[in-house]
């Protein structure tokens, strides 16, 4: 049934679960769980970009953070090259992490304001005891030039850089350990369009040049379409659709994917299209609706949708969707 992952994939995420406890009552015991990520599975092939898209609170960033064990998982497996990261003992974790890096949304908040950026970038090398100080410095200059910055930038402090440059520094810091896989957590959301284009171009160039594998987390579908090979759409802690980029954007199957796509404003005033305007807000993951989690807002909801949860189905070749419209009852 669940064949969204494949042994040949570099990254295999299987049944990933992350719940947050909610404490209450006099004795502060657990009264409920926020189901931020609730049974998420996908695979990423080597050299591929998987886009993970969804609205705020859908759990997309939690997936990225839990995969790297920056957050303790509640359950599931994340295999990197066949090794389960989530089950690995602490001491081997450091070695695995060399290959897995992350770039965050807010480049300014993720750089130490009191360190010249050259030192921030070299920090990973120091922690992993790689090279002499001289070799480390040379490696820093090398990654700086890879992201389009100059040698002299290494001596400067974060406040001296613009937003786009800071995000390049964030990318340089992720690159310095020569990782195979990078989680890009909304890397361009805080940037102006012209700068966003620059950073997207750099990310694409680096992927080609270094054979990197990306998980690209974003809320902007147009950006995700631009950079991804395959795309997963999340809603309230679940993946609702997972398909190749062209399949997904040409022929979205899940009603949520369709609504999300039609909600994106297109910069073409001559274009007239029927918009699907969803009613209401995203429900809280604290108390998700029964059955399909999207059914209260779904324009095509049927009686079964509120009673029973649909399962992931391969509705078209390589196009997985979790919806009763495509599932035998």
């Amino acid at each position, binding site marked *: 049934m669940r064949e969204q992952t494949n042994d040949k994939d570099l990254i295999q995420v299987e049944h990933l679960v992350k719940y947050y406890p909610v404490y209450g009552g006099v004795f502060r015991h657990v009264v409920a769980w926020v189901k931020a990520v609730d049974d998420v599975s996908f695979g990423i092939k080597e050299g591929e970009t998987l886009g993970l898209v969804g*609205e*705020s609170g859908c759990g997309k960033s939690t997936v990225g953070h839990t995969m790297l064990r920056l957050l303790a998982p509640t359950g599931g497996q994340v295999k990197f090259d066949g090794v389960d990261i989530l089950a690995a003992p602490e001491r081997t974790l450091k070695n695995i992490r060399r290959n897995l890096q992350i770039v965050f949304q807010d480049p300014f908040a993720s750089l130490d304001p009191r360190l010249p950026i050259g030192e921030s970038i070299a920090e990973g090398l120091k922690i992993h005891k790689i090279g002499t100080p001289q070799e480390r410095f040379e490696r820093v200059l090398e990654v700086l030039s890879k992201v389009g910055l100059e040698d002299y930038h290494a001596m400067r402090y974060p406040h001296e850089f*613009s937003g786009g440059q800071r995000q390049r520094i964030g990318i340089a810091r992720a690159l310095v350990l020569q990782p195979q896989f990078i989680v890009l957590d909304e890397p361009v959301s805080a940037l*102006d*369009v*012209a700068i*966003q*284009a*620059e950073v*997207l*171009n750099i990310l*694409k160039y680096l992927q080609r040049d270094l054979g990197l594998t990306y998980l690209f987390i974003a*809320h*902007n*579908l*147009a*950006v995700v*379409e*631009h950079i991804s090979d395959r795309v997963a759409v999340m809603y309230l802690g679940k993946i609702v659709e997972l398909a190749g*980029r062209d399949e997904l*954007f040409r022929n979205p199957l899940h009603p949520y994917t369709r*609504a*999300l*796509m*039609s*909600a*994106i*404003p*297109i*910069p*073409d*005033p*001559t*274009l007239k299209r029927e*918009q699907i*305007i*969803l*009613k*209401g*807000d*995203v429900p809280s993951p604290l108390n998700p609706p029964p059955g399909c989690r999207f059914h209260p807002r779904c324009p095509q909801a049927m009686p079964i949708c509120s009673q029973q949860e649909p399962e992931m189905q391969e509705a078209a070749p390589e196009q997985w969707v979790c919806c009763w419209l495509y599932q035998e009852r």
Partner: protein
Amino acid sequence: MHNDLNPLLEVQGLKTYFYTDDGVVKAVDGVDFHVNAREVLGLVGESGCGKSVTALSIMRLVDSPGKTVAGKILYEGRDLLSLDKSEMITIRGNRISMIFQQPQTSLNPVFTVGDQIVEVFQIHSQLSKKETWEKAVDLLQLVGIPDPERKAHAYPHEMSGGQAQRVMIAMALALKPQLLIADEPTTALDVTIQAQILNLLRDLRNHIESSIILITHDLGVIAEMADRVAIMYAGRIVEQTDVRTLFAQPLHPYTLGLIASVPVLGNVKEELATIPGNVPNLIDLPPGCRFASRCKAREKYGLSICTACEPDLLSVAEGHTVRCWLYQDGEGHKAPLSK
């Protein structure tokens, strides 16, 4: 519908500077535009280009160390900059109102949303408390808040971002203003909620027949909402035209760069166009055109005047103005490159 002879609002030579310890930041430095009755004017630009300060200047809400030092803001023939405080209060919220990017921080956390809408009526009308409360509930209904009678008693923290923005819109439209200034009204919201809010603004505009100044950096939102567009760069308007011309025949190199750098859904390009370099320092502006250092067209046509002398905002076609040396000569006439 468009009557350029009698615009609702006309901004002339507006300059708002911030007097900081590091120097004078020329956030808005000679801005001219107008808004016609019942139209949506899009004001577009990147962060720091002065679009929000322009809006605050119109509302006379610029705080120290900022100061509007020059220009005119003509509203129904009167210059808003010459009005005293009490005269301005009768206009603000009543004739011209504004909604902000962060709805949750713009609402007062210690009052219910109903009370905050009622306050608008208390300032500008003589209605009784009961009448105003009923009006507030009606407004919440109008902006699509479910169960408005109950929600009027809710505090801002009990609402989602989309609902809080609806409340802000309800407050702004309470007295059916002639002009609504919407400063990035959907930037903080998710796309499905953004679609709801834009839809609501469109409906309300048709309903109340007010004009809107829509400030945004999102060209997609502009294409869907605006009738006319003004593009801002480093404190100045660089191009102004109707929305179709803007996307079909953009003229200013900055506008061209901006449009080309946006990834468009369903139209994947291998590489996105970029605008090299950074926005100039607004304290120490370079002489000449403010975009010159980043301009690809300047290099292509080998223009030397760009770094020496600033071009004017000149009309190149009916209702289409551009501030660029490609389209004018030294005497302020149209240059060969313009149509």
